């Protein structure tokens, strides 16, 4: 008797979970449904292609939210079924690319943050006849991955342009804040700054923990009074740096990469000097659009060279025009 009652209980739990899980999955699939039905009004006619986008996004980042917004808008306009997946670790991201190949997608858009790990998988996709587009990261390596096109910023150039601006601003010493240890792209940005502004020091902080990041930057500003410019590599990090500056009573200027509504407002208020925007919305939008053009017309873009979406400067001269777009998640 007791055992059969336990069995009933097991079944009840299993059934409840099954219902709960089905609920979960239909929520998850809602994105695809929206892409399908939403396209009815303005969508391009013809075959519906499936495009996989595999990135190194660390979940919950506002920057990546814009890349995805761009990709989804393009997918909606072009009647494309967009399959998005991400993992911040290169080896796992490579497995996700393999997953896309197994799923026989029509096109692949991929980021090469950990180039050595992801290139073999991307090349495998290209060899399997899947057109590959690299975006966001992979400026130097996209051709090795068998990709015809690249949409993104030149990190080194962006860093150098910041260094030049700091020089022009008669800067004394710059602090370049790296919010994720071990990222090649972030290191490249700071190295770029150092190229055109030699007195630049790197500071490693934990960007996943904003209060800790703020404390680290604040401590550094208190310890080294010679710092005149703080360079942050993300919009959220710029806000942490602004708070740290207040805490430390420092008069250093904060300049940053990328934008979000708060950072844009801080630029308007003159708290942040300027931002170097790599226009993530454009990266996502163009990656999907270029693949669609390639699939429908055999087009390619960039004339065999990378297509740069940045560095695009946002400062007091053009912030009024750009501010509304930050609220709609496009800049």
């Amino acid at each position, binding site marked *: 008797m007791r055992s*059969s009652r336990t069995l009933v209980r097991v079944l009840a739990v299993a059934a409840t979970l099954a219902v709960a899980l089905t609920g979960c999955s239909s929520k998850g699939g809602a994105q695809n449904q929206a892409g399908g039905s939403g396209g009815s009004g303005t969508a391009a006619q013809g075959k519906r292609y499936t495009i996989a986008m595999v990135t190194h996004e660390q979940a919950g980042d506002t920057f990546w939210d814009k890349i995805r917004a761009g990709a989804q808008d393009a997918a909606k306009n072009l009647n494309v079924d967009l399959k998005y997946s991400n993992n911040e670790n290169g080896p796992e991201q490579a497995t996700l690319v393999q997953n896309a190949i197994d799923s026989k997608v029509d096109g692949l858009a991929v980021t090469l943050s950990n180039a050595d790990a992801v290139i073999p998988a991307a090349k495998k996709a290209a060899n399997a006849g899947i057109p590959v587009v690299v975006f966001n990261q992979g400026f130097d390596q996209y051709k090795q991955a068998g990709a015809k096109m690249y949409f993104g910023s030149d990190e080194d150039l962006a860093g150098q342009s910041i260094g030049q601006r700091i020089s022009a601003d008669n800067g004394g010493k710059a602090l370049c804040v790296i919010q994720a240890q071990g990222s090649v792209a972030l290191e490249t940005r700071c190295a770029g700054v150092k190229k055109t502004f030699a007195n630049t020091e790197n500071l490693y902080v934990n960007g996943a923990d904003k209060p800790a990041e703020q404390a680290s930057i604040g401590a550094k500003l208190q310890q080294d009074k010679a710092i005149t410019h703080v360079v942050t590599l993300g919009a959220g990090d710029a806000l942490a740096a602004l708070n740290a500056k207040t805490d430390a009573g420092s008069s250093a200027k904060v300049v940053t990469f990328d934008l979000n509504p708060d950072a844009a407002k801080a630029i308007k208020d003159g708290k942040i000097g300027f931002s170097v925007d790599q226009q993530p919305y454009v990266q996502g939008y163009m990656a999907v659009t270029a693949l669609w053009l390639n699939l429908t017309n055999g087009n390619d873009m960039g004339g065999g060279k990378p297509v740069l979406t940045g560095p695009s400067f946002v400062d007091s001269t053009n912030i009024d025009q750009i501010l509304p777009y930050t609220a709609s998640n496009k800049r």
Partner: protein
Amino acid sequence: MSAPVATQPPRAPQEPPRATRSLTARVLTRPEIGAVAAAIAIFIFFFAVAAPFRTLPAFSTVLYASSTIGIVAVGVALLMIGGEFDLSSGVSVVTSALTAAMVSFQLSLNVWVGVLVSLIVALAIGFLNGYLVVRTGIPSFLITLSTFFMLRGINLGVTKAVTGTVATPNVSELDGFGAAKAVFASDINLGIITIKITVLWWIVFVAIATWLLLRTRVGNWIFASGGNAASARAVGVPVPKVKIGLFMGVAFLAWFYGMHLLFNFSSVQSGLGIGNEFIYIIAAVVGGALLTGGYGSAIGAAVGAFIFGMTTQGIVFAGFDPNWFYTFLGAMLLLAVLVNLYVKQYALTRK
């Protein structure tokens, strides 16, 4: 239970009823039985909802993803049966890979020299973990947490100091790379399906660990050390040696997976591996290992890794929104441990 009792007397009153019951009970009381049930349920679920999941290449990808977790999880499961934790297993994978890459590249040596040096380094880390735990009596959670932080810093600091960047140089031009890749990171064509060699190694390690646990004296020692260290010591089990050995076992498997990372991708970024230690522990726990030690199995850890690999890839094959990825993963894990619990209770009340 009532059904077999009712049918027995008219058929064969003399027959001892224990034989058949004990076989069923033996299967049902295995630590991994709940995980196997959950794995089958999750497999059926993805088979039903995700069309690409049904192909053989997809299965190969699932197996590969599982093996990358499963190899280290085997060692972690044994260690947990022995009553200890290792939070440094995730970063020691990367420490091994970085060591091998930098030693062989900077000194222009055959990659096998780097492979050997990194094995020694990895075993030394494992030994140090174990030695500190048994000598000080401080919980392994704290000792290995310290090792975790130190290795995390060393991984980045040493790599940056030696190479000037945060990733190792590409080692694919060095002597011995081809052979090392064949051992650690090649593809095996089995006719109908091409699988990564890590899947085979994974099976080998699980088999060895299972044999060790169930068929040798050392296996009994491991269960005894984790169940009750004081009693085990009293009956002559060399508890300190067993525990140090288990830490070194985890270190060995972390080294092995580190070599796969290196030879599969030719270079390694120094920031990898963080957080994976929990995935290994989760795989072992889903597979029936108790957090308190003394109970668990190597096959269970393998099934746990398979559940994890299948779920991570299955969600992508099904095209679910990745924003919900961890929610879904959490629900799947909860399902696995609940099924685990209820199957075990069912098995116990059956007896």
